[in-house]
């Protein structure tokens, strides 16, 4: 991992490296310049040395000629040695420009030494006139050497003129270079420091923003930090926390949803009850009256009328009693039969009712008064308008996990938009003479009761009639809650 500490170290190392590089370059350059200067000075010193040595030789010679003793002779020899070594030094001064002059110069030195020797020799042979003459010559030669030294210096200055100017120019250039380097290093350092600090503060800033968003309650924004340091680690942890919180919130929301659904189903039930209560004037009075009417009809020999009245009374009682609780399919089928009896009395032969019932399935739970509104719908739309009536088929089959309840008619069929309206639980305008509970109410209650959407399916073709299939799960999700509600 690229830690912040490592980043700081890198920056410092880079700066240090630059400084060291500059130091080395400058030291090297300085050394080089100094060597050059030393070389130049050396040249001048060597020439000067020759002049000095030659003058020294003349002085020693003079002393010796005045008082020719051992000490002065030794002194003279030393001077000559010095002169010889100076002559060797002159060899290095040679270059293309002064080659001839240097040769002459060295020969002059040789001549000086020879003349000196000659003077000493004449002195030892007591030919003092010749000796003095040679001394005069040596003096002249020494003077020539001094002059030639000046000439050489002059030549030197001319030859090296360009070079010296270069040195001056170079020092100006060096100054300029220093300024440029200072500027560019300053800029580079500023930029890299900016970038570097940004690489630390930007993730922190991002994290801060994420924290702020989180504190404001926005849990859906992902916390993303692209750096590669401790902050990124922190951000990752933060992100995990956010996801966890999100999951918890989701769970709570789901629970709330469930609670809400339950509430709604209860409200719907209440609504249904209210409707049925509204439609009931005085139910007990009505039941009793109907019972009395039934008995009366029986006593008067109108048995059919008596049965009919009994059915109506049963249906009404069921309606009032069963609406707010689940019933078994058996009970529903029983009520359905009573209802069909009543309708058959009304339509006589025009209504044909066929049933195929798997008796084993009749124990399944179903909300009360769900099948009757559907059948009623079929009667209203498939039998009532037709002159020669219609057939309604009622089937109950076992489909393993589920119980299929099928109500089919051979009426004119149901338009597509109406099917959609029903399935989307919109209120449908019901034709006046129903028992009051609408189709969409049934659908809603079924879905709430079983807690799933796919319990009802409506198929219809223009000629085929309408087929409503209910697929009722044998076990239902909200069973427990429902039972609890029942107990209340």
């Amino acid at each position, binding site marked *: 991992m690229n830690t912040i500490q490592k980043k700081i170290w890198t920056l410092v190392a880079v700066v240090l490296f630059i400084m060291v590089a500059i130091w080395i*370059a400058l030291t090297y*350059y300085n050394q*080089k310049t100094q060597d*050059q200067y030393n*070389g130049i000075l050396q040249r001048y010193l060597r020439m000067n040395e020759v002049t000095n040595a030659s003058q020294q030789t003349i002085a020693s010679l003079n002393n010796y000629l005045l008082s020719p003793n051992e000490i002065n002779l030794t002194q003279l020899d030393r001077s000559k040695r010095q002169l010889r070594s100076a002559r060797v030094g002159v060899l290095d001064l*040679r*270059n*293309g*420009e002064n*080659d*001839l*002059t240097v*040769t*002459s*110069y060295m*020969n*002059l030195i*040789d*001549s*000086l030494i020879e003349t000196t020797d000659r003077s000493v020799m004449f002195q030892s042979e007591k030919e003092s006139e010749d000796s003095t003459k040679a001394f005069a010559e040596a003096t*002249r*030669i020494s003077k*020539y050497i001094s*002059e*030639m030294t000046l000439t050489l210096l002059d030549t030197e200055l001319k*030859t*090296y003129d*360009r*070079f010296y100017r*270069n040195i001056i120019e*170079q020092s100006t*250039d*060096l100054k*300029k*270079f220093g300024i*440029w*380097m200072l*500027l*560019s290093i300053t*800029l*580079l350092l500023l*930029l890299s420091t900016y970038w570097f600090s940004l690489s630390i503060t930007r993730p922190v800033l991002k994290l801060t923003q994420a924290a702020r968003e989180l504190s404001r309650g926005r849990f859906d924004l992902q916390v993303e930090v692209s750096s590669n340091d401790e902050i990124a680690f922190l951000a990752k942890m933060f992100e995990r926390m956010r996801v966890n919180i999100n999951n918890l919130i989701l769970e709570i929301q789901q629970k709330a949803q469930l609670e809400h659904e339950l509430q709604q189903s209860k409200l719907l039930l209440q609504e249904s009850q209210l409707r049925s209560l509204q439609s009931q004037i005085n139910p007990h009075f009505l039941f009793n009256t109907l019972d009395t009417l039934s008995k009366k009809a029986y006593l008067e020999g109108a048995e059919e009328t008596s049965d009919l009245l009994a059915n109506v009374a049963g249906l009404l009682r069921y309606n009032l009693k069963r609406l707010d609780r689940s019933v078994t399919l058996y009970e529903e089928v029983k009520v359905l039969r009573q209802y069909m009896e009543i309708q058959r009395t009304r339509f006589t032969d025009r209504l044909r009712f066929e049933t195929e019932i798997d008796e084993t399935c009749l124990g399944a739970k179903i909300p009360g008064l769900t099948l009757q509104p559907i059948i009623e719908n079929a009667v209203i739309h498939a039998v009532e308008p037709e002159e020669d009536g219609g057939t309604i088929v009622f089937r109950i089959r076992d489909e393993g996990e589920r119980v299929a309840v099928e109500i089919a008619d051979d009426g004119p069929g149901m338009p597509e938009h109406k099917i959609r309206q029903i399935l989307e639980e919109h209120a449908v305008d019901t034709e006046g003479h129903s028992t009051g509970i609408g189709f969409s109410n049934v659908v809603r209650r079924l879905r709430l009761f079983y807690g799933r959407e796919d319990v009802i399916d409506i198929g219809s073709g223009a000629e085929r009639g309408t087929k409503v299939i209910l697929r009722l799960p044998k076990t239902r999700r909200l069973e427990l809650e429902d039972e609890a509600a029942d107990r209340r």
Partner: protein
Amino acid sequence: MRKTVSLVLGVVCVVLLSFTLISADKVFRTSWELPSPPVGKPPQYRLVLITQEQDTPFWVKVAAGARTAAAQNGVAIEVWGSYGKDQEDFLKKIEIAIAAKVDGIIAQGLDTEGFKYMTKIQAASYGIPIITVGSDVPMVDSLRRTYVGSDQFLAGQMIARELAADMGQSGTVILLGDDSEEYYQQQRLGGIRNILAAFPRIKTEYVKTPVARERIIAATQDAMNRLPDVNAFVAVNANIADAMVQEIGRRSRVEPFHIYSFDDSPDTLSLLKQGKLDGMIEQSPEEMGRLSVDLMVRWLNGETVPLNKDGYLTDIRMLKAEDVR
């Protein structure tokens, strides 16, 4: 905005860096161009050409000829000299050359004791050959190997012939010469007299003067006062010509006089061009320089030993005023 800022920063960065690099390159890459040590093998001989009249047109030509010949022969030559006939400096140069043990000295002849001592005693003791050039000093006095230059006697004769042709069979001629009476001047004078002896009606008057300007003027004045019927002047020493002509011009018109001189002074050619001189002996300075170096090399190589002691004479011509106009 951000893009602009980073673009500007980038450009600034690049500019700064490039300037830094350029100046770094300048500082570190500058070659310390020291003069190179001498290349190739040293030249075979070191020769020195020494004159008393450095940088006069005549001696510049001699030096140029000598340099050309030196380059051809692969020897090194240095041209030393004094200015304005500084004899002391001239002799010192010769002594330096001797002490510096050059291989050969080519020197303008100077007919003085100092010069003779230098060449006869000093140079001989160091074993350095000397060739005189331009003007000669007799071999017995200087122990020179040879002489390269004009035949001054012949030059004098040419002047005299020209004079006789221009002036006619009779007249008075003033010969103005330098009082040191060097060998070459004696030769010239000898030549002139040699011819003019054949013309009994031409009277010659020899006037000696020091080379200082006012002395020349005085001498000219004096001679013209003594010989008012003078017809012609000959400046035997070319260096005298300018002051002489000036003095003549101050007294009367220059044109009627026949005035002659030699070319070994910087003034004579311009005087000739102005028409103030009627004629001038032109020598061959380049040829002198070239030939002297050639001969020296040949002698040093042992190809021509000994050199012709009478000298090697170079061309001379009479140059008349009409020719240069």
